[in-house]
């Protein structure tokens, strides 16, 4: 759709539909700009970055191997804090993934065209984040080679899984989420893979693209089903993205631990997930945009819109904190009062203040247009949100658990080196995958972007019939 043609020319600049690209972008130039990366040898700084992140990933793997060998006694978890870094990291990473699905599914359903340039990367981040997330419940079961017991399959023990357990719902929710995200991502990639296939010289790379693109040839009769499938998947993923973190929150909300037993948890978790995910997407996109010279496709407008989403989510988070505290106060339950006072005072009081500072206070900077467009402030806010959201889960999980109903069972939690190592390693795995993706597959959904370039669709030109 051509925004210049859809509006009367006299409309002031602020009321016009924003340009999705800067400068002249044609379908051909778009391909040449985005699809050249898989064919090029990566620059030296890419190798350096990959060496660093994979080293970090290897350190994490080492600590995971150590955990497998010795058992999870190597972690700081102990009665009554049986869930700690492992579950915090799980919730954190699943949350990071939510931004990708939100951008690719919900914004697609709402026809927000600014999603097109960033959807591919955000979806890839979803998949990598869910992979990192899935790691943690697996290693938390202690003997991960028996993790298939989580699946309801007929077995010689004559037992079935407990379908009333939110933990089992979680298994289904996260594995469904991963499958659907993968399917969504692959369908989006398919036409781009065909473009890559046809511009690559014969060789192993072309063979690979040929196989992966399934012989896509852009036939009109195919596009028709393809668009329908994409719309249906977006609709399904919209429901799914709202359900996944809701189900994750059920792990907590259906228990009776003070501070967990809250009806606000499902929406509160979903908002938090989108919040953290957008912050991560902004950080990674800035790096991608600068290092791959994509300023004309991922524009200041894109970053500004994402920052507005972060700001909105931050306000919702603040609202959720207030409502949660109000619920606790209004319950007249002294134990709940104690737990909520514990969030901001007591041994881990600093974590509560850090959470609120990073998630509610710092993002308020984004009210200023200058901050929404300045890398320094954007990265500051995004880093703050990432830290804040990690500590929010720390507060919810560890602080609630370490002092509950029975004062004789109270015990402080202290993570071990292994805990820190695995957390660090998950970041290494995530960023290694992101780096590999950036050089192997198209980082921008070229096909989708071509369809919204000015003049791409018929009927807006001079010879409209």
């Amino acid at each position, binding site marked *: 759709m051509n925004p210049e043609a859809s509006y009367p020319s006299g409309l002031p600049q602020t009321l016009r539909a924003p340009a999705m690209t800067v400068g002249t972008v*044609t*379908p*051909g130039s778009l*391909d040449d700009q985005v699809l050249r990366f898989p064919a090029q040898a990566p620059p030296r700084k890419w190798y350096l970055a990959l060496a660093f992140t994979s080293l970090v990933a290897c350190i994490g793997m080492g600590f995971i191997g150590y955990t497998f*060998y010795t058992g999870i006694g190597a972690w700081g978890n102990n009665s009554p804090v049986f869930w700690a870094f492992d579950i915090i990291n799980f919730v954190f990473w699943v949350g990071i993934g939510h931004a990708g699905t939100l951008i690719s599914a919900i914004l697609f359903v709402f026809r927000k065209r600014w999603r097109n340039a960033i959807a591919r990367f955000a979806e890839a981040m979803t998949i990598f984040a869910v992979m990192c997330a899935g790691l943690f419940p697996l290693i938390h079961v202690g*003997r991960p*080679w028996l993790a298939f017991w989580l699946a*309801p399959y007929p077995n010689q023990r004559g*037992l*079935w899984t*407990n*379908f*009333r357990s939110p933990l*089992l*719902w979680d298994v*289904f*929710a996260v594995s*469904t989420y991963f*499958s*659907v995200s993968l*399917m*969504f991502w*692959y369908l989006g990639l398919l*036409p781009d893979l*065909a*473009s890559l*296939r*046809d*511009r690559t010289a014969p060789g192993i790379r072309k063979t690979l693209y*040929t196989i992966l693109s*399934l*012989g*896509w*040839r*852009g*036939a*009109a*009769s*195919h*596009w*028709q*089903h*393809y668009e*329908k*499938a994409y719309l*249906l*998947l977006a609709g*399904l993923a919209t*429901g799914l993205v709202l*359900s996944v973190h809701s189900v994750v929150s059920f792990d907590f909300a259906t228990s009776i631990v003070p501070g967990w037993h809250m009806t606000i948890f499902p929406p509160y978790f979903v908002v938090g997930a989108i919040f953290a995910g957008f912050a991560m997407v902004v950080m990674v996109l800035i790096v991608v945009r600068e290092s791959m010279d994509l300023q004309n496709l991922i524009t200041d407008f894109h970053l500004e819109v994402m920052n507005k989403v972060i700001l909105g989510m931050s306000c919702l988070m603040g609202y959720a904190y207030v409502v949660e505290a109000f619920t606790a106060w209004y319950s007249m339950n002294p134990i709940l009062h104690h737990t909520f006072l514990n969030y901001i005072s007591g041994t881990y009081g600093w974590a509560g203040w850090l959470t609120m500072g990073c998630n509610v206070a710092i993002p308020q900077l984004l009210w200023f247009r200058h901050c929404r467009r300045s890398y320094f402030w954007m990265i500051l806010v995004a880093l703050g949100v990432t830290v804040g959201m990690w500590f929010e889960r720390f507060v919810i999980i560890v602080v609630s658990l370490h002092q509950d109903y029975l004062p004789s069972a109270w015990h402080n939690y202290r993570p071990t080196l292994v805990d820190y190592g695995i957390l660090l390693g998950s970041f290494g795995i995530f960023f290694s995958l992101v780096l590999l993706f950036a050089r192997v597959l198209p980082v921008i959904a070229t*096909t*989708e972007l*071509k*369809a919204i370039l000015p*003049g*791409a*669709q*018929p*009927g807006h030109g001079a*010879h409209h019939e």
Partner: protein
Amino acid sequence: MSETFAVLGLFDSADALMEAIPKVRAKALGRVEAYTPYPVHGLDEALGLRRSPLGGMVLVMGVLGVLTALLFQWWMSAVDYPLVTGGKDPSSWQAFVPIMFEIMVLFATFTAGLGMLLLLNRLPHWGHPVLQSQAIRGITRDRFALAVEADGAFDPASARSALADAGALEIEVLPVPAAGPMFTASFIQRSLAGIAAACVVSGSLLYWAIKLMPVLPPMVHMENQPKLDPQESSTFFKDGHGMQLPVAGTVARGFLPFAMTTPEQSAGLVNPLPRTPAVLARGRAQYQVHCAVCHGVLGDGVPTLTAAYGAKPANLHTPAIRAYSDGTLYGTIVLGKNAMPSYAADMAVDDRWAVVHYVRALQRALNAKDEDVR
């Protein structure tokens, strides 16, 4: 020149393509198909394509997913292994809803994705003539192609002129790809070699997965524990043995030292426990754990478990055994008799004496006198 599959005309904009479609279709030369780098709005109407049936397919499969999940969960947790959690009826369906939702999404997603690719679009299809054309490099980039496909009496020349009249910039004639015979000797040889290689690889992987992996560390199911088992050596004790005698001068709880080696030495012992209901209950419990397996619940030598080695457990109601003193019964438990092993290691002293009381009660009950009833 082989038979023609289609004639392809190239355009450089979506507008030009849309203008050309009605002109080419009006000639009615054959099926008209368009190839575009991205979905173009209104193309399906212009080409007169049927509406995609995918929505209906997804709806049906989504409903099927919901029902499948409901049925499976209900059967597993209410029929096959009824599980009461939180005092709820095992068949209450509310808790099944989250998984029903997830399975619905899963079914619907795979129907939408794979149904679109495999069923409706007939992909993967790597051998399509358009993929072999010169035009495909433009089609997946920024060109728009209109193809008139050959059917029946097809004249490539008239298709060519129709496309040229409609404004095609370039025109390409696509031949039907030559199909060689499929089952050549080398194809069969390579297939067999491939199957054999796949068998060897998957067989060794399976062997590794089933036989070796479960016993490799750390997957040893808590076999390694920081404790000493019997017969294990120890670096802690000076003599290197894991099993040690009690420290000199100490007595383990419940085990009074009594150097009894023959039944005669035990005959004179007196049962130190009072004959109270509590003691009898304790004796009954111990009897059922340790004795009833061979001597039977009534003590009549009819075993609850047939002794595989063919020994015949004693009937405790024979006159000879009824005439035993309490001490002799106790001695039999401690020392064993014939095929019966010693139970000294399994039963504490008080448990043995309680069993003696219980055996006496059994003997009395099965050989009751008239005054017992009175």
